[in-house]
């Protein structure tokens, strides 16, 4: 059994965190295994040395092992690992600032960092995702920024869970809030943006034409604008949904990638159903095309 000085233990832990950070999120490698291999390598390389192993002896082995981020080609990085790596310098700067805090505050901060480091690795990102989400609630004006950060961390956690093929278990309660909120907003925005186009177009109709348009459309002049807005919105939405559902039929895994966690419930069959519904709505919409054309001509030809 290799015995290290306290300083060497801290240095080895730091290096192994670097190793794990460099490997985690790579689609084809097992971070636990690589970490253990590196630990064994260090022990084997220091076997002939006098014990306890000092930090200088350890440093020479670490130097030969090299920086872990250079071990793996970029092609093995997932998109979430890429984002996490991009954000890493921001985290390092924040840590440097924490280290610069003097006295008791530093000791308290250090104790929190140590506790997080000692946590079961699989839970760290789940806690962080929920922590960022909760922090956003507390500092509400900054909620969008915290939500985006929380969403990225939650997606990273999900990618790691999928990569390790482990069940999500109770971690879902920490990871799902930012995912559900962002996915819901994205789905609502993507599904309904054509409504705003339809409504915006009807604002161009001058009030002086409402009476004449009511006659063409066979409705009261008071409801010309809402009826026209509804008609245009239904047309725009049904055409957009037809297009979107065709994309899903062609790429059935896309909803799962874009809208976790419930996007995985939506595949080719659901895409086909939406396509049929939106195609039916489009046909009904087109059956009023003649009336719409007459009304549009009136608006366009107004003096």
């Amino acid at each position: 059994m290799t015995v290290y000085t306290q300083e060497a233990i801290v240095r080895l832990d730091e290096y192994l965190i670097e190793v794990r950070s460099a490997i985690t999120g790579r689609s084809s490698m097992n971070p636990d295994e690589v970490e253990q291999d590196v630990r064994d390598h260090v022990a084997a390389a220091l076997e002939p040395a006098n014990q306890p192993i000092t930090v200088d002896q350890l440093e020479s082995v670490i130097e030969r092992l090299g920086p872990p981020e250079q071990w793996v080609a970029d092609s093995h990085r997932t998109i979430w690992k890429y984002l996490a790596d991009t954000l890493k310098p921001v985290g390092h700067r924040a840590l440097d600032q924490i280290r610069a805090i003097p006295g008791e505050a530093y000791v308290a901060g250090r104790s929190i960092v140590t506790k997080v480091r000692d946590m079961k690795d699989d839970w760290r990102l789940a806690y962080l995702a929920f922590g960022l989400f909760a922090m956003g609630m507390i500092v509400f004006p900054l909620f969008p920024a915290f939500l985006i950060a929380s969403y990225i961390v939650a997606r990273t956690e999900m990618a790691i869970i999928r990569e390790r093929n482990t069940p999500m278990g109770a971690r879902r309660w920490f990871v799902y809030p930012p995912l559900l909120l962002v996915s819901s907003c994205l789905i609502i925005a993507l599904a309904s943006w054509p409504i705003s186009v339809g409504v915006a177009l009807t604002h161009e109709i001058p009030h002086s034409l409402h009476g004449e348009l009511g006659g063409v459309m066979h409705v009261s002049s008071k409801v010309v604008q809402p009826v026209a807005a509804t008609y245009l919105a239904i047309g725009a939405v049904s055409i957009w949904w037809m297009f979107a559902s065709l994309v899903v039929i062609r790429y059935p895994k896309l909803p799962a990638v874009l809208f976790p966690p419930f996007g995985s419930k939506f595949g080719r069959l659901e895409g086909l159903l939406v396509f049929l519904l939106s195609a039916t709505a489009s046909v009904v919409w087109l059956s009023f095309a003649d009336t719409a054309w007459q009304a549009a001509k009136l608006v366009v030809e107004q003096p």
Partner: protein
Amino acid sequence: MDSEFFDNWTTQLRKGILELGVLASLRGRKLYGYDIVKQLSMIPGLMISEGTIYPILSRFKRDGLVSSTLVESNEGPARKYYELTSLGRRELARMRVSWRSVRDGIDSLSPEAESP
């Protein structure tokens, strides 16, 4: 400029050959990680960082090219020994044929390369 070009070229070359080197070092024997590193370190210029082989071994294991077993050691904790699987042996044979073919082809293009 010359040095930068040569450094980039050797880096690219090393990336591909190191995987062949790891599999070749395991041909017909079991080795633990540190032993593989020592074997490969004897080839000049092949390895810049010794740790590079561990992600490769992890990937090979996931791809079924190597397997590992824990063996008790008199000198310390149990050691993890790697060996080639039958798939690993087949892939190594194919890689060696491909490597020889490229090496011989390059040599035949420039027979006087040793005396530029």
